[in-house]
């Protein structure tokens, strides 16, 4: 790892003379995690609490003929067995998804994917509930499934969504961005056009903690307290009010410590709703926690994009245009979590980091007999797919033109003076300075030396590959006028209270799943108010304790909530100026701010610290007109634009020519996320994302057989990388602040997940160049690499 002295080299991170605020400090939340004192869903125990289990469909597509729960109800310890029929009576059999579709909570008419929820057992303990599942007698009439998305729109394909009136096919949406005619014209006159099918297979976020809930419905007052694994507690509260018909002021959602989210915990799953139903029916708290197989088989998957991509360029290597047609497999229900106007998420950022003349994309979404979901696994609303597509195409172009892939990228970068840059599909990139980041990663890698080594190795028949990727992310959704989820604008609130002794509490609408919010947000307040981070408590994850906002996903916490927190601290600081002036018997405009203190201009010895001012505010100081006796403030931040972090990644692989086994030898990641609040947390995020990326590139895939059986339903089948598969990460950074963000910060949580898969695959394909391989799809397992070496690479689906 490359550790540079952040304070010395990065003025935005706080110089040596500014000890409080930004910088490399240890995470405030770590002591409780390290000591085993975290409080996760399965740690929650309420008096009289019951347990539950879900019966899941063994087949992918089948008419439900009958369910007999008699034997299960007779099982010792079983309190209730709930079926779809029961839910129909409660009008809860179907729930709205986050994409204007509906999803079955329990099957009423037919099964639409293997692992779908069929019945719900509530029992005195987890064992009785699980055992009783085997005593529910279900008769299915098996139907032919639609598994291959390429065949979903065939005229004779079985119709999956017979519940939608008049539905005669499996089509969900067509969506496009950019100018098709203009793009076609540029393509028609280009020297070089490359076309390649590029598949991003279905993968799963697989957080360490699976999904779960504890529902506690109190019937006398009609209060529902729902402990949930959710990345978006406030949005869930509103949705539960809509779904369950419980008045919103009587719903409290608590998201305790969350063991990883990666988008897996954005949506509302049937299990959450069933826990609520179970509590209403039994009058007792009900816990539901899914097991690993349930998590892998039924909760939000990610990707599943079949992309036909094309790139046009001049023969001297000027990239002119990009176009793509995408077939998007959304599974049995369209339940992707993304802003309403963007059914393909932010995929139209597929123009990447390059200055193009034209671009056009078209995405067609289809239903298949697979689990629903689609936006998850740290994908920044489909930026992952977009970046993978463009970075593979640029690499193929470099090969075709016999140009160095790093130099080809540099040649085509959007130039610093072009920012804010409007791309051809409607985005306005806020800031960027790409070449220094690319050059820095090449310098850390020793790029030229690596190319020399590769040349020598090739002559000896050894397979070494160097993969380059450069990504631009679009994160921090988003401006309310453009972006909402089920009608809720994507803004976030923050409340700050400074107590009389100068200690503070800041309340957030976003929810950490491991990102270190309790530290980062304390540091933002510390930087703005000049009080130490350890004197600031960060409260999040409880809708009764925090202001409204849309939650944590799509790398939006720092871009949106981070801005809210900086602004609320500035509001407090401004208020403190008035109070300090009253205390010092001077005018506010005669005071000057230095970190932590207002002092009299020209006489720094006379001033008041935030703690003194707060005591004054809460004490007996005669306050100016219009100033309340506190040091509190609140804001709701509506971002004017998204932020556009970027990065330059280089991966070095060695491939065993006899077995096709890929070893990632080195990985260099240079990230630019604007102002860096806590570099250690940023590096932690980057390390995790790079590991994700190596996993996807080399081994992760949820496959199905032709009957729709999920072949990735356990960690024996769905492989995630271990420490053995990843190298010692080499990280570096540049700092290009966001011009519209109050502290210049951009999101970084997903950058590495987005940017690393193309670097790894580009390295593998580069290593296989002597075999004439120009493309191979993920995952690059030994067998698939060997097939590519034989001249017959296969799509994984």
């Amino acid at each position, binding site marked *: 790892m490359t550790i540079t002295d952040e304070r010395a080299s990065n003025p935005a991170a706080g110089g040596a003379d500014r000890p409080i605020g930004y910088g490399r400090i240890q995470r405030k939340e770590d002591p409780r995690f390290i000591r085993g004192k975290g409080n996760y869903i*399965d740690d929650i125990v309420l008096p009289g609490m019951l347990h539950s289990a879900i019966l899941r469909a063994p087949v992918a597509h089948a008419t439900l003929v009958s369910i007999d729960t008699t034997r299960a109800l007779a099982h010792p310890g079983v309190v209730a067995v709930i079926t779809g029929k029961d839910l129909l009576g409660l009008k809860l059999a179907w729930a709205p998804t986050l994409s204007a579709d509906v999803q079955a909570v329990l099957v009423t008419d037919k099964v639409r994917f293997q692992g779908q929820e069929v019945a719900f057992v509530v029992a005195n303990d*987890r*064992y009785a509930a*699980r*055992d009783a599942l085997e005593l529910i007698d279900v008769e299915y009439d098996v139907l032919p499934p639609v598994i291959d998305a390429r065949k979903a729109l065939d005229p004779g394909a079985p119709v999956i969504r017979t519940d939608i009136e008049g539905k005669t096919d499996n089509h969900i949406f067509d969506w496009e961005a950019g100018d098709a005619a203009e793009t076609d014209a540029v393509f028609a006159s280009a020297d070089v056009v490359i076309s390649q099918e590029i598949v991003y297979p279905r993968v799963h976020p697989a957080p360490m903690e699976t999904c779960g809930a504890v529902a506690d419905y109190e019937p006398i007052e009609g209060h529902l307290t729902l402990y949930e694994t959710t990345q978006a507690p406030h949005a869930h509260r509103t949705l539960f009010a809509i779904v369950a018909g419980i008045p919103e002021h009587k719903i409290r959602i608590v998201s305790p410590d969350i063991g990883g989210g990666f988008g897996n915990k954005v949506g509302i799953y049937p299990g959450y709703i069933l826990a609520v139903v179970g509590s209403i029916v039994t009058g007792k708290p009900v816990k539901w*926690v899914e*097991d*690993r*197989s349930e998590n892998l088989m039924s909760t939000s998957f990610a990707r599943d994009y079949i992309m036909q991509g094309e790139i046009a360029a001049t023969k001297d290597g000027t990239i002119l245009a990009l176009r793509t047609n995408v077939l998007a497999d959304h599974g049995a229900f369209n339940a992707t979590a993304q802003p309403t106007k963007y059914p393909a998420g932010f995929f139209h950022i597929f123009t990447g980091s390059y200055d193009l003349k034209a671009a056009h994309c078209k995405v067609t979404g289809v239903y298949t007999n697979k689990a629903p979901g689609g936006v998850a696994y740290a994908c920044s609303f489909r930026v992952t797919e977009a970046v993978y597509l463009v970075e593979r195409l640029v690499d193929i172009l470099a090969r075709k033109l016999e140009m160095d892939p790093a130099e080809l990228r540099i040649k085509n970068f959007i130039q610093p003076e072009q920012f804010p840059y409007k791309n051809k599909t409607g985005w306005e990139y806020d800031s960027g300075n790409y070449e220094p980041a690319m050059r820095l990663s090449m310098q850390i890698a020793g790029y030229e030396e690596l190319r020399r080594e590769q040349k020598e190795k090739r002559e000896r028949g050894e397979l070494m590959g160097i993969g380059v990727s450069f990504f631009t992310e679009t994160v921090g959704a988003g401006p309310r006028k453009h972006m909402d989820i089920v009608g809720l604008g994507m803004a976030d609130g923050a409340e700050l209270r400074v107590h009389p002794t100068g200690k503070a509490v800041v309340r957030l609408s976003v929810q950490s799943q491991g990102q270190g919010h309790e530290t980062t947000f304390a540091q933002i307040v510390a930087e703005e108010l000049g009080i130490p981070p350890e004197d600031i408590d960060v409260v999040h994850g409880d809708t009764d304790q925090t202001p409204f906002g849309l939650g944590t996903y799509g790398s939006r916490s720092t871009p949106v909530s981070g801005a809210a927190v900086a602004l609320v601290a500035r509001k407090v600081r401004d208020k403190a100026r008035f109070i300090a002036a009253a205390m010092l018997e001077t005018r506010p405009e005669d005071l000057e701010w230095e970190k932590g203190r207002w002092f009299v201009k020209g006489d720094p010895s006379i001033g008041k610290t935030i703690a003194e001012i707060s005591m004054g505010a809460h004490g007996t100081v005669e306050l100016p007109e219009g100033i309340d006796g506190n040091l509190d403030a609140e804001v709701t931040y509506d971002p004017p634009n998204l932020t556009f972090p970027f990065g330059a990644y280089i991966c070095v692989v060695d491939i065993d020519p*006899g*077995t*096709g*086994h890929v070893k990632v030898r080195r990985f260099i990641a240079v990230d630019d996320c604007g102002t860096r609040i806590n570099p250690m947390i940023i590096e932690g995020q980057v390390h995790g994302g790079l590991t994700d990326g190596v996993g996807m590139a*080399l*081994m992760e895939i949820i*496959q199905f057989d032709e009957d729709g059986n999920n*072949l990735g339903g*356990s960690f*024996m*089948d769905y*492989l995630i*990388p*271990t420490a*053995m*598969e990843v190298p010692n990460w080499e990280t570096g950074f540049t700092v290009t602040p966001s011009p519209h963000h109050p502290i210049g910060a951009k999101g970084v949580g997903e950058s590495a997940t987005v940017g690393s898969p193309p670097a790894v695959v580009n390295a593998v394909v580069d290593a296989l160049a002597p075999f004439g391989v120009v493309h191979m799809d993920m995952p690059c*397992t*030994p*067998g698939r690499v*060997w*097939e590519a070496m034989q001249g017959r690479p296969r799509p994984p689906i």
Partner: protein
Amino acid sequence: MQIPAPFDYARASSVDDALALLERHGPESLIVAGGHSLLPMMKLRLARPEWLIDINDLFELDFIVRDGDRLRVGAMTRHTTLFESDEVRRLFPIITDAERTIADPVVRNRGTIGGSLCQADPAEDLSTVCIVLGAEAVIRGTAGERVVSMAEFHVGPYETSVAHNELLVEVRLPIRPRSGSAYEKVERRVGDWAVAAAGASVSLAEDGTIDHVAIGLTAIGLDGTVTEAEAMLHGKAPSEELFVEAGRLAALACDPLADQRGAIDYKRHLADELTRRVLRRASSRAAEAQEG
């Protein structure tokens, strides 16, 4: 949490006690040693024993002892113990090679050689190793002990000749002079089951020709050893040409299935490639042993 079907549990205090418990609880009782195969199967409800007989207190079965021209390994010897044993590395480097690729340290700390052999998973590494080394299995029942060859021990996938009321107590490995052995596995990820693996043991005559050779394959559909290749190599001086031919014969001998780990032609290719590699390494180790 994946929840197994209900079961009862007894902890054996000795081999005789374990045998008595098996007898008492009948055919629906199963022995648990390291538990790294059985417990996942129980959690997935693929295995549903009524009783688990835990033999983790049977410390008398945890030993590695040289006894003349054989090495005796107790059935409860943990993978880690085998992996870290200098004597094992010196006598049977194939075991050290294989152990390095078995799962991860956490699994190796619990898993045992006896458990691995009795699980008889087609992708199990130590079964191949024991076949290649010509091991014998010592099986004890209430009526006494019997000793069987690996060919007799191994009946088929997940099936051995250890009867329900018997216990594998020991594995005996013959020590041959001027020998070398090696194992190599291809896996998609550390800890995944093998895509394919191969093991070989080579013993040289005093003149440097191959006096004894055994080649085994893992996870690609071969019971026993690659006898055609062994016959071809016997009596000849080790050479790259012979290894290439042996690899070709191994590819013909195996009968792999296509799955997520790889296609049939790829796995046949690995039989060839890995056979050549392990023969190369085993021969060179044998030559070193000869010099040493």
